[in-house]
C-alpha cells in the first residue's frame, strides 16, 4: 500500500533532519567560545577519570574524528556523565522521558479532540451565544501567557482550594511505601497530572477550536454538502459524517506544524510544576551549566518533536485518501 511508501519517505526525511541538527549541535558546542573540554568533562573529576572520559569521548582527537566518536556515542547512548547528578546522562533521561511523553501526548490529544468537537458545535451555532461564548473563550485562553496561567491555576486550585498538589509528579509517601498497589500509584500520578495537563489543555484547545470552526464554515459551503442535502440526509448526519471529517483535516495539519511550539509550552509547564520531565531537565541543566545533560536533553526533545511530526503526518495520510491513493 502506498501508505508504507509514504511513511518510509517521511521517516527518511526525519532521519536526515535529525542528523543535520545533531551535526549543528556538535559544531556549535565545539566552536563556541571557551574550552570545549570543560564542557564535556566535569571540573570536579579526578585527573585520571578525566583522562579516561576524554579518551572515551575522543575529545583529544581532531575535529572530524571527534565527530565520528560523537555519532557513535550518540547511538551507543553514551552522553557522558552529568556534572550535577554525577550519574551517566543516559540514566537520567531514561527516567525523565516517559514523564514528558505522558504529559505531552495526553495534552495534545485531549486539546485536539475537545477543540475539534467544540469547534464543530461553534460553527453550527454561528452568530448565536454559544458560538460567541466559545470563540471568545478560545481567543482568551490561547493568548494567555502560559507560565502565568500555570501559576494562576496552582494558586487557585492547589494553594487556595487544596484540591491538587502544588508540584511534582508523585507523592513520596505512596511511592516509597512498599505495600502500595499499582492502581494507587497510578491514581496518584493522575492526581498530580491534572493541573499541568489542565494548563496545557487550556492553552492549546483554543487554537484548534478556532481553526475547526472556520474550517467547518468553509466546508459547509462545498458542493458535496449540497449533494448530501439533495440526497435527503438529515442536517446532523451531514454535519457529522460529511462535513466534519473534511473540516478536521486542517486541524491535524496545524497540530503537526505547531509541535515545536507545543513542546516549548511543555517545557515551561514542567518547570513551573516541577514535573520531572526532559523539558524541565533541560532548563535546569542549562542553569547549572551541566553541558552533557543539556546537550542530551536538547537532542532528545528534538527527537520527540520529529517523531511526533511523523505520527501526525501518518495520521493525516490515513484520514485523507487523496494522499494515500
Amino acid at each position, binding site marked *: 500500500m502506498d501508505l508504507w511508501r509514504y511513511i518510509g519517505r517521511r521517516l527518511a526525511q526525519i532521519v536526515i533532519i535529525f542528523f543535520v541538527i545533531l551535526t549543528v549541535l556538535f559544531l556549535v558546542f565545539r566552536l563556541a567560545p571557551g574550552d570545549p573540554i570543560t564542557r564535556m568533562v566535569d571540573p570536579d573529576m579526578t585527573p585520571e577519570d578525566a583522562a579516561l572520559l576524554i579518551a572515551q569521548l575522543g575529545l583529544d582527537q581532531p575535529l572530524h574524528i571527534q565527530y565520528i566518536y560523537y555519532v557513535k556515542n550518540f547511538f551507543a547512548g553514551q552522553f557522558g556523565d552529568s556534572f550535577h547528578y554525577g550519574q551517566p546522562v543516559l540514566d537520567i533521561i531514561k527516567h525523565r522521558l516517559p514523564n514528558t511523553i505522558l504529559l505531552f501526548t495526553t495534552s495534545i490529544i485531549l486539546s485536539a479532540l475537545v477543540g475539534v468537537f467544540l469547534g464543530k458545535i461553534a460553527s453550527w451555532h454561528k452568530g448565536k451565544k454559544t458560538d460567541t461564548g466559545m470563540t471568545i473563550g478560545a481567543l482568551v485562553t490561547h493568548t494567555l501567557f502560559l507560565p502565568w496561567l500555570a501559576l494562576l491555576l496552582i494558586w487557585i486550585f492547589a494553594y487556595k482550594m487544596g484540591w491538587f498538589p502544588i508540584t511534582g509528579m508523585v507523592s513520596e509517601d505512596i511511592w516509597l511505601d512498599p505495600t502500595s498497589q499499582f492502581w494507587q500509584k497510578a491514581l496518584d500520578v493522575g492526581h498530580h497530572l491534572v493541573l499541568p495537563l489542565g494548563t496545557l489543555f487550556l492553552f492549546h484547545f483554543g487554537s484548534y477550536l478556532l481553526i475547526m470552526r472556520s474550517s467547518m464554515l468553509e466546508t459547509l459551503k462545498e458542493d458535496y454538502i449540497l449533494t448530501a442535502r439533495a440526497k435527503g440526509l438529515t442536517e446532523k448526519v451531514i454535519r457529522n459524517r460529511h462535513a466534519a471529517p473534511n473540516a478536521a483535516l486542517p486541524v491535524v495539519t496545524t497540530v503537526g506544524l505547531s509541535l*515545536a511550539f507545543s513542546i516549548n509550552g511543555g517545557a515551561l509547564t514542567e518547570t513551573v510544576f516541577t514535573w520531572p520531565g526532559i523539558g524541565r531537565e533541560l532548563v535546569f541543566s542549562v542553569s547549572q551549566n551541566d553541558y552533557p545533560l543539556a546537550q542530551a536533553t536538547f537532542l532528545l526533545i528534538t527527537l520527540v518533536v520529529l517523531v511526533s511530526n511523523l505520527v501526525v503526518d501518518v495520521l493525516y495520510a490515513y484520514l485523507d485518501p487523496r494522499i494515500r491513493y
Partner: protein
Amino acid sequence: MAEAKPQRIKIHWIAQFQEGWSIYKQNILGKIGLTLLVIFALMALFSFLPPLIDPMYHPMTGVDPVISSSTGPSLKHWLGTDFMGRDILSQLLAGARVAFMVGVSAAFMSIFLGTAIGMISGYMGKFVDTFLMRLAEVIMVMPTLLVTLILAALFGQLSIWAIVLVIALFRWPGVSRVIRAQTLSLKQRPFIEAAKVAGASHVRIIFRHIMPNVLPLSFLYMTFRVTSAITIEAALAFLGFGDPSTVSWGMMLQWVWKTGHMFKAPYWLLPPGICISLITLSFYMLGRAMDEVLDPRLRREG
C-alpha cells in the same frame, strides 16, 4: 511597459490603504485590538516619566527609602512594591517599552528575512529553492525557546538584542513558506513575463514587481510574529535567562515566582501576566482584522 508599473503601484497602495482602513474600521475585533495597543503604546511612552518624578520610581534601581519588602497598592505606589521595595507600576510601564522593542524588532527582522528568503526561493526555484526550504524545515522543527536556552548555556547570559536576534533567526521559516507560495503564483502571471521580455534583470523583477504584491502578506504575518517574539522573551526572562539589565514583564514574573511571593502578592503576580496576555490578544485581533482586509473572502456577507 514594465518600467511604468512601480509608479502606478505606489498610488495604488495609497488607495488600497484607504479602502483597507474603512473595512478595518468595521471589524469589532480590530477596533478593540487597536485600542488596547494604543493603551500599551502610551504605557511605553509614559515609562520614562516615573524616574523623572522621583528616583525611587526607577524600575531597576529605584528603591523606596521607607519600604524594603513587598507591599500592596497604596497612594505612593499604585500597584504596590516588589520584594526589594521597587515600584511595580513603573516596572510595568518599563515592561511595555521592552515588549514593543523586542516584539517589533524581532518581528521586523524575521519578516525581512522570511520575505526575502521566500521571494528568492519561490522565484529562483530548483536548487536554491530546495536548499532554502530544507533549511526552513530543519529550523522549524527546533523549538525556539529551547534553542535560545542552549545558546544561553554556551554563550553565557544573553543580552536583550542577542535574544531578539536569535528569535528572528528562528522565526522566519513560517513566513517564508507563505511568501514563497505567493511568489510562485505571481511568477506565472503575465506581467512578470512582460517584464522579462522587456529585459528586466532578476533582481529588478523581484524588487519592483514581486515585492510590492507580497508585502501586504508580510505585514499580516508580522502581527503574529510580534506576539511570538514577546512571549518567547517573556518565557526566557521567566525562566531566568533574560537580560538582567532590562525590566520586562517576564522578568517581573520571575521575581514573583522565585522570591516565593506568588501566592502572597496578587498585585504583583497579576499585572505583568495580564499585560503579556492582553498584548498578545490585541496583536492577534489586529492580525485577524487585517486578514479580513487582505482577503476579501473573509469579509462578512450581507
